[in-house]
């Protein structure tokens, strides 16, 4: 067992991506093949007469498969209809059979044998058609009614060598030409069928291989950040070309290097994972940024025994390890199939893995903090973890006293990300957590919304917003947070307030950081917990920067509030000017009671009383004034105060205070007279 806290299989303990137990077992006796229906996210295992299907969206290993019986026969491919009421099975290159799961109705679709053959088929949710059948002569689009009658709607005539389709992109690419590098694309989105401009893929030629041919395994359709990319392997050049699809154009967007003769891709949380199968490493790319540099160094995919990476689960790890080690997991063995977007099917062991990212490991290996924060802020799958990591990074940056410019950059990243997510409506306050959980922000789960949203999910000029598969909504439920965005309040609470104690001796630095933070949130027109202003006052007063404190206050960098005013009064114990700032703030905020009390406390009882008289404030204890005047030994003042108070407070003349001080006044004045 490696020294790492996790049970792992692989050449090393370090990894940025891992698969973990429990896996989804699909070991059915007499299995004749495993299929994956990416539209419904079903793993399908067929025997001679039965179809077992597992939901992979929730990835619950304990889920029992649903079983359907179909007539015996060869199965080239199998797909459930989108409403899962029918099963379509391709029996041969000219025959597709349909079975209604409830009515057991059967229908057979055949094409003209000899002149054309069926390459494959898929179900579609486009309003135009429900089923697309790709043949060597082109693509037939069929509408299918509830009685499973197929009606040919449209035929797209193209010579097709092979095709690829992913349901998440709703995009089908038809390859033609001798080298299979001429690509015709259609998007069968809910907005209709869009024909993409024909484009040629890039292929390097060498002397030994002047006419390389692209095979379907060399082309991958991926969807990240709602954009659709096509990745194409160019073995001669050892490059993975990327193409991005726009509504009216296909643009090649750079290439990634290849280090293996065999490779596959997965997409996890909008990140592209390129499995260099020969080298047994995985390289992670974030296509969001223009740079085509990998997010992290190539590291092997790791196998972890137990979900959760904390060491406390070590004991359980060992328990499960024994059972899994029997399966003899070999990383990247021949029989692995990479399923869209993030599943790996181990045909040998008949298990299904989901690929996970280790955000902690990635963040630990990255040195550029602000781009790391940007990276983490884009993570949705493990939003909570990403958020905690971001907070931790921000804290560490400050505690390590990194140059202010660096910290500023980091704060800017977090604030902009938050502002963006608020504007986009992704961010929900924590108090709405329950509602977030029940109605995931990805509304694609409900069919109505899917229609509505999907209308906009066609290939767009600028950004293609795609419906994420409904499965991701469930995953969001798990982490409860839909976005790692950190609100200014949380930044204050978990970053600034938590480092204050440790940084109190370096308050200059902390104030500079807070200023940048305030600037950043003000630029985004956000608000923050006013305790940060109280804290700023405290820090400035601590380092005796009174001039700046008054600048901050007069320029309203420190927003006025009762709490700030009281802190100013408190810090003003050392400096009268600061105390005055606090008093002024109280007055400007019309906090009459506090203002008057503070004035009296400072010995300005006449001013206080005058103010009370003017503003008709009666909440301040009258004895405060009287005692202050009596203490100052000025009987004229005392008399004046008594008079004003009796005007100000109804019934004051009947109170004991009045008698007490009136008596005192009489005594003193008579003694003077004597």
């Amino acid at each position, binding site marked *: 067992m490696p020294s790492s806290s996790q049970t792992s299989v692989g050449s090393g303990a370090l990894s940025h991506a891992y698969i973990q137990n429990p896996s989804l077992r699909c070991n059915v006796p007499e299995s004749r093949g495993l299929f994956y229906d990416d539209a419904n996210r079903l793993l399908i295992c067929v025997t001679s007469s039965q179809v077992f299907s597992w939901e992979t969206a929730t990835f619950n290993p304990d889920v029992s498969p649903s079983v359907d019986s179909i007539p015996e026969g060869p199965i080239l491919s199998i797909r459930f209809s989108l409403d899962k009421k029918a099963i379509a099975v391709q029996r041969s290159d000219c025959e597709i059979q349909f079975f209604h799961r409830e009515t057991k109705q059967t229908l057979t679709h055949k094409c003209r044998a000899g002149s054309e053959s069926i390459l494959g088929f898929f179900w579609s949710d486009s309003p135009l058609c429900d089923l697309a059948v790709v043949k060597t002569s082109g693509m037939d689009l069929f509408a299918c009614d509830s009685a499973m009658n197929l009606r040919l709607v449209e035929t797209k005539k193209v010579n097709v060598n092979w095709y690829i389709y992913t349901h998440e992109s709703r995009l089908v690419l038809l390859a033609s030409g001798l080298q299979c590098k001429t690509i015709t694309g259609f998007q069968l989105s809910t907005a209709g069928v869009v024909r993409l401009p024909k484009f040629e893929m890039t292929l390097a030629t060498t002397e030994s291989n002047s006419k390389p041919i692209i095979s379907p395994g060399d082309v991958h359709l991926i969807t990240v950040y709602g954009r659709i990319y096509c990745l194409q392997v160019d073995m001669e050049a050892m490059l993975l070309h990327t193409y991005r699809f726009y509504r009216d154009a296909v643009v090649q967007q750079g290439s990634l290097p290849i280090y293996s003769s065999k490779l596959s891709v997965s997409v996890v949380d909008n990140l592209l994972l390129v499995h260099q199968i020969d080298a047994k490493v995985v390289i992670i790319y974030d296509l969001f940024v223009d740079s085509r540099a990998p997010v992290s160094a190539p590291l092997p995919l790791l196998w972890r025994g137990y979900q959760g990476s904390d060491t406390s689960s070590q004991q359980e790890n060992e328990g499960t390890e024994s059972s899994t080690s029997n399966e003899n997991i070999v990383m990247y063995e021949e029989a692995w199939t990479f399923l869209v977007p993030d599943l790996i099917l181990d045909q040998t062991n008949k298990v299904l893995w989901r690929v996970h990212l280790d955000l902690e490991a990635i963040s630990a290996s990255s040195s550029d903090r602000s781009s790391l924060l940007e990276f983490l802020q884009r993570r949705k799958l493990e939003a909570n973890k990403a958020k905690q990591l971001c907070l931790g990074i921000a804290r560490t940056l400050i505690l390590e006293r990194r140059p*202010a410019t660096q910290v500023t950059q980091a704060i800017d990243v977090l604030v902009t990300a938050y502002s963006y997510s608020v504007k986009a409506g992704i961010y929900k306050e924590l108090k709405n957590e329950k509602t977030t959980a029940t109605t995931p922000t990805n509304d694609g789960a409900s069919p109505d919304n899917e229609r509505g949203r999907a209308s906009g999910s066609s290939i767009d000029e600028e950004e293609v917003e795609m419906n994420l598969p409904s499965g991701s909504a469930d995953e969001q439920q798990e982490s409860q947070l839909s976005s790692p965005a950190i609100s200014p309040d949380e930044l204050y609470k978990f970053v600034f307030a938590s480092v204050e104690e440790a940084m109190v001796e370096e308050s200059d630095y902390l104030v500079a950081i807070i200023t940048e933070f305030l*600037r950043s949130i*003000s630029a985004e027109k956000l608000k923050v917990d006013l305790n940060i202003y109280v804290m700023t006052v405290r820090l400035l007063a601590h380092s005796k920067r009174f*001039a700046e404190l008054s*600048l901050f206050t007069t320029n309203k960098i420190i927003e006025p509030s009762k709490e700030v005013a009281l802190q100013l009064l408190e810090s003003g114990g050392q400096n009268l000017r600061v105390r005055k700032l606090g008093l*002024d703030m109280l*007055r*400007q905020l019309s906090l009459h009671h506090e203002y008057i009390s503070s004035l009296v406390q400072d010995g300005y009882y006449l001013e206080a009383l005058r103010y009370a008289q*003017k503003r008709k404030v009666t909440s301040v204890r009258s004895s405060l004034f009287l005692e202050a005047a009596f203490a100052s030994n000025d009987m004229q003042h005392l008399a*004046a105060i008594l008079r004003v108070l009796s005007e100000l407070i109804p019934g004051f003349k009947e109170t004991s205070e009045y008698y007490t001080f009136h008596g005192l006044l009489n005594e003193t004045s008579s003694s003077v007279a004597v």
Partner: protein
Amino acid sequence: MGNETKSNGASSLGGGGGGFRAKMEHYVYSGEKKHVLAGIGIFTVIFGIPWYLMNRGSNNHRSHQDYMEKADKARKARLSSSPSPSSDNQIHAVNDPLTQGFPCPYKHNSAMSEPVAQSFGLCLLGFILKGFYEILEAMGMASMNSSGESLKLCVFDLRRGQNEGQELDKILFFYPPDVTFSTQLSVIGLSEGLITFTRLFSPEAACEVIEAERHSHVFHEAEPDIWMVMVVEKNKEIEAIWRVDALQKVLKEVHSLFVMFHGSIRSLLDKEPSGGLIRSHLYPFITDYLNDLSVGKKLQLPSFRETLKERGTVQMLTLARDAALEVQSLVGVLDSCAGTLRCHSVILFHDLLVSTTLSPDDTVDLFTFSVMRLTSNALSSGTSSWSYLRKGTSLSQTSSKSTSPQLLVSSDSLPSGNGHDAGRVIRPLQHNKWIKGKDGFLVTDIWGKDATPTIWLHQRQERVHLLAYQQKCLTLVLLVPTEAIVNGELDISFVKHQVIENATAKILKVEEKLSKGWGGENAYHVSGYRYLLVDNDMEVSRASPSGKVATLAKETLLAVNKLRETVDTEKSRTKEEKDMEICIRAKNNAWAIARVTRGKELYMALEKASDTLLDATDSVQSFSNRYCNGTFSMD
């Protein structure tokens, strides 16, 4: 008490022709050549001016005997008529509805009733001063009048030259420099005598001003036992009416600027007890400073025309919150330009302060210097070599070329090699010595070729290097601690590089933001009002633009000047901060209003003849509410 006061004032002052006033102790004295009178009294604001003008011409000789009788009479009257003698004098200008029932806008005067001993003292003073004047006359002091200069300014050290024959040792600086030693000695001798004498009664604060018939002597104890005295001639011209406090502020300013560049006078004296060092520094410094005050060939002191201005304060630019945050962000970057040691910075836009990390005192000094020499306005006034008039101010600076033969003792002629490090005297206030370099930093050869200026920060007691950077109208003054500069100019250029590297983007942003919000020279003009707002705590002031103040009638300005004098007197008398309100109806029916509350002062001139007192106070009220956050709203 008010009535009694007036009669007292009249009786004691009636004997005096001109009146001379020791501000702190209120000795009133008339300085006619042969006769010396001492007394106590205060001008009533309302009757003061006409009374003064009325009496200006009548310099009838009165005998000393005459005065003594009157003074004695007055003293007796006071003693008998005041039932409860109070030790200090109170002006009931305080608007206190609690004790007075109704706001009393007029200032009442009350004479002090001082202990008998002081009366004796005053008699003594009379004799002493008489003696002084006789001596002075013999020494040619009287020739002062005939000398062309209307201003004398001297700095002397009371601890020096205590022995006979060594009196010259006291003198550290004398302006004009070409007067004879005997004249210098006579001025200083008189001043010293007055200081010594008034200290008998007020050891803490000796006299601040002596008003003689033709001269005002303004005193300022810059450092313990180091005095600066300004003797200004009162001529017939009405322009020569000034406020003593304003003159004192000139002395304070020149001293604190000197300290900022050279350290305290005492420290230089300690460095070289012969005094050569301090003299060689003071002469060029003060003459350079005075250059700024000269118009043509005459020095122009701050007269009543500048009564709505406050020297020794900072004028600030009002910032919107987002601009302020940008500025603070820039300040944060500047702070860390020299590595771990924190730099200080002062940022100006045009001639207004935008931000500072220094204490108010240091800020004022650096601000004053920057406005004099560094800001874009100061630099651009130097570019046109024939017109040196500063735009928008009545203060003008004259080319050092034209005045230097007259005013300036060229540094070459000064004793050199007197122990100063470089063997030459640095003249930080020299004109036209700063230019903007290619990299945006302002450069000067005042401190030597490629040498970076250093200044002394009062509050932190440390010496710092001064770097100034300019982007259009934005001037940044960066103060780098000397400890951060180990390798001299190499480290300086590193800091400069850091500034350019890290702060340029922010500087451009701030400059753009401020320019966008810049309201021009008249940004702080409030129509209908001519005002001066002073915050003594922060040493900040704001005033109507001088162009607008210039539209006020002379009478109004004189009334405001008088009003300010009154407030000055009252302030100097009470240590504790007091609220007060004074309204004066000037001869031209304008209102001059002062409100003072807890360290903040508002002076205002309202020239609307039809306004009643209530209208005027309402105007002040609404001004206070709108522009001062209600600070001066007193009801």
